[in-house]
C-alpha cells in the first residue's frame, strides 16, 4: 500500500516538476528539504533575498515530511526526478548519496572557505578530502526552564547535577509543577534530549566520541553507562504516565506552563517563543561535579548540496555560494532562532534565548552526537538502538549496565575496531 501510494506520489511530482521546468524561462532551482516547518520563512524571507540579488534564477522550496524525507529523496534520486538542490542530513545518509553519485562535490566552491573543518565534518568523506554539502546550521542541546516557576520557588539555575536534582526535588515537593517534561513514547526524546544532551559531560565530548570510533572506548565503559544511570534517576521527576507521553505532549506540557524544566534542543526556540506566555531561560547540561569542564552537544544538523544530475549546475553553484555568505548566515540564524550558523562570520542574533544557547560555545567544549559519525553504518543501527536503550532505562525496564552491554555487543557485531 505505502509502496504504491509512494510511487503514485513520485509520478505526480515528476510530472509537476517537468511542467514547472517547461514553463520557466529562467533557471529554476528546486530545493528538496525535510524542514516543512520552515516553508513560510523560505518563501517570505530567504528566497526573495536571493532572487533580488540574482535575477534570472528562480528558487522553489519543496519540503516533505521529516520522517519520510530520506526514503522519498532516495526514490526521487533513483528515478531522476529529484530537485536541483538537496538538503543534506549529516553524516552517513548524505555520504551514501555522494558515494552513489547523487551529490556533486562542492569542495572547491568559493563559499566553502567560510567554514571550519568541524563545521564541514558532517558532510565530508571519511578522510576529509571531499565535501559534498555546504553546512547551514547546527543545533545545541541544553535545558529550557520556566523562569516564572523558578522565581516563584526561589530556585537558582543549577550548575551541577546535584543542584539540578535538588531543584527538581523542590519542584516536586511544591507540587504545582511537573518537574520535568519528557516522555518515552517516541523514544528519540529520551536519546536525543536525554542521553546525547547530558552525555558529553561524562565522555568528555570529542575526546570520548573519537575514542569510541577508534575502539579505545567501549560502550560498557563507565563514561558511557554513567549517563544512563543519571537518566534512570529522571524517572521520578517526569509526569504521570510518561511512558505514553509523546514528543508533542511534552512540548505542550511545557509551553502550557505545567512543567518547570524541559530537556531541549535549540530548534525548539522559535516554536516555544510563539506558544509560551511565561519567561523562559536556558542552562547547559549541568556538570557531574562542581568545577568540571563543561561539554555541549553542538550538533551539525543541516546542510545543502547539489544534485549531480541537475541541469542548472551554474545556478545551483551560485546559490550554494550564497549559502556560504554572511548575508545568508544572518538571515537564517535570525529567521530561525535555534538553528545556529556554522560559518565563521560573526552573526548578531536578536533572540535572548538563542543568545543564551549560543553563548555556551564560548565557555564549554563543543561536540556532536556520539552515534552519528561512522557508528550507525551497520545493522543493528547504533543510533536507533540508543533510542531504544535510553527509553528502556528511563522506564526502568533495562539496567544501565545491561543497556551498555547490549549496545556494545550490537556494535561489535559489525564494527571492526570493536571486535
Amino acid at each position: 500500500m505505502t509502496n504504491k501510494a509512494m510511487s503514485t506520489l513520485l509520478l505526480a511530482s515528476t510530472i509537476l516538476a517537468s511542467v514547472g521546468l517547461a514553463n520557466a524561462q529562467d533557471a529554476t532551482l528546486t530545493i528538496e528539504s525535510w524542514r516543512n516547518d520552515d516553508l513560510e520563512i523560505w518563501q517570505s524571507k530567504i528566497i526573495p533575498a536571493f532572487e533580488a540579488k540574482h535575477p534570472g534564477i528562480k528558487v522553489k522550496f519543496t519540503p516533505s515530511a521529516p520522517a519520510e524525507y530520506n526514503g522519498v529523496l532516495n526514490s526521487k534520486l533513483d528515478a531522476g526526478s529529484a530537485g536541483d538542490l538537496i538538503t543534506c542530513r549529516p553524516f552517513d545518509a548524505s555520504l551514501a548519496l555522494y558515494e552513489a553519485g547523487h551529490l556533486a562535490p562542492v569542495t572547491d566552491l568559493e563559499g566553502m572557505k567560510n567554514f571550519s573543518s568541524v563545521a564541514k565534518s558532517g558532510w565530508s568523506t571519511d578522510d576529509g578530502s571531499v565535501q559534498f554539502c555546504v553546512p547551514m546550521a547546527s543545533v545545541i542541546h541544553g535545558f529550557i526552564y520556566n523562569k516564572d516557576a523558578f522565581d516563584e520557588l526561589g530556585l537558582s539555575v543549577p550548575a551541577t547535577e546535584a543542584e539540578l536534582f535538588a531543584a527538581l526535588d523542590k519542584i516536586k515537593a511544591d507540587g504545582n509543577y511537573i518537574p520535568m517534561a519528557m516522555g518515552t513514547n517516541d523514544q528519540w526524546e529520551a536519546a536525543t534530549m536525554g542521553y546525547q544532551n547530558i552525555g558529553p559531560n561524562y565522555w568528555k565530548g570529542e575526546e570520548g566520541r573519537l575514542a569510541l570510533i577508534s575502539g579505545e572506548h567501549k560502550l560498557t565503559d563507565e563514561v558511557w553507562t554513567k549517563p544512563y544511570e543519571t537518566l534512570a534517576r529522571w524517572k521520578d521527576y517526569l509526569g504521570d504516565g510518561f511512558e505514553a507521553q509523546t514528543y508533542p505532549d511534552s512540548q505542550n506540557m511545557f509551553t502550557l506552563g505545567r512543567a518547570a524544566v524541559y530537556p531541549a534542543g535549540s530548534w525548539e526556540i522559535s516554536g516555544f517563543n510563539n506558544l509560551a506566555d511565561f519567561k523562559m531561560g536556558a542552562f547547559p547540561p549541568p556538570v557531574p561535579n562542581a568545577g568540571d569542564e563543561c561539554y555541549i552537544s553542538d550538533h551539525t544538523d543541516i546542510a545543502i548540496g547539489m544534485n549531480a544530475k541537475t541541469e542548472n549546475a551554474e545556478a545551483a553553484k551560485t546559490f550554494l555560494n550564497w549559502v556560504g555568505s554572511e548575508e545568508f548566515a544572518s538571515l537564517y540564524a535570525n529567521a530561525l532562532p535555534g538553528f545556529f550558523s556554522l560559518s565563521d562570520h560573526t552573526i548578531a542574533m536578536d533572540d535572548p534565548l538563542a543568545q543564551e544557547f549560543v553563548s555556551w560555545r564560548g565557555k564549554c567544549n563543543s561536540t556532536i552526537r556520539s552515534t552519528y559519525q561512522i557508528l550507525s553504518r551497520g545493522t543493528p543501527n547504533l543510533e536507533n538502538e540508543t533510542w531504544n536503550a535510553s527509553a528502556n532505562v528511563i522506564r526502568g525496564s533495562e539496567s544501565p549496565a545491561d543497556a551498555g552491554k547490549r549496545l556494545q555487543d550490537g556494535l561489535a557485531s559489525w564494527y571492526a575496531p570493536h571486535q
Partner: protein
Amino acid sequence: MSTTGISKRRVRWHIAIFLAPAVLVYTAIMIIPLFGTLQLSLFREIDQKQIFVGLENFRTLLGDPRWSETFWNALGNNSWFFVIHMLVQNPLGILFAALLSSPRLRFSAFYRTAIFVPTILSFVIVGFAWKLILSPLWGIAPNMLDAVGLKSLFAPWLGKPEYALTTLGLISVWQFIGIPMMLIYAALLSIPDEVLEAAECDGITGMQQFWKIKLPLILPSIGIISILTFVGNFNAFDLIYTTQGALAGPNYATDILGTFLYRTFFGFQLQLGDPNMGSAIASLMFLIILAGVSIYLFGIQTRLRRYQF
C-alpha cells in the same frame, strides 16, 4: 459447461477478449510487482551493484541472531495480534449479528450503523483519536475511570511493553468489528424461515435454535471471516505506524511484520533503507499468508458442509 457431444468447436476468442482487461491490469499492478519483490530478495547490493546471492538474504534473516530475534519477535507479536482478533472480534461480531437479527430488537438500524461506522474511518483518525483518549495527560480515559473511583486501574497502556500490543489489538477490533458483524448478519438473514419454523415445530427454540440450526448454517461465513482476518492482520501496518511510529515501541513490543518490513525497506532515521532485505521480509510475509490461506482452502473449506435450500 457440459462438454459432451461437441468434439470440435471454434476457438472462442471472446472469452480471451473479455478476460483481457482484468488480466492485464491485475498482472501489471499485482503479479509483476509480486515477482519483482521475490526477485529483489535474491539480490544484494555490493559496491553499488546488485549481485545475485541466492537465498543468502533469507539465511541472514533467519540465521543471524539479531535479524532472527527481530523477525521472530515481529512474527510472535503478529500472531498475538491475530489471536486477539479471533478471540474478541469474531465472537463479538457473531454475537452482535445474532442480537441484531432478532426481530424483537428496537433501533436495530441505529446499532447496525453505529457499530459499522468505525470501519470506514481512516487508520490515522482511529490511531490518533485513541491515542488522545488513552493519553495520561489530556485523555478522557483517566478522568472517566476517576469519576467511577477506579483511577487506580488506569495505566499508560500504550507506553507499557506488557500492555501496548493488546491495547492496539483491541483498538483494531473496535475499528473492524463491523465487518464480521455485517457478513454474519447477512448470512443469518438468508436462512429461510421455513427451516426455522420446522425447527420450532420440532421444539427447538431460543438459544438451542442458534447453536443447532443457525450456527451450522453460518459456518462457511465464519470461515471466510477468519481467513479475511488472517490476511488483514498479517498485512497490518497502518495502525501501529500511526500510533507507535516505525520503531514500534515500547522496546519493540508492538513490532509486527509490517513495521519491521517498513523499517528495513525504507530505512529509519540514521538507518539506511535496504530494499533487498526488505524484500526478503516481504517474501516471507507472502509465504506465511499463502501457507495460512492454503491450509484454510484445502484443509478446512473442503470439509465444511454446505446446505442448499
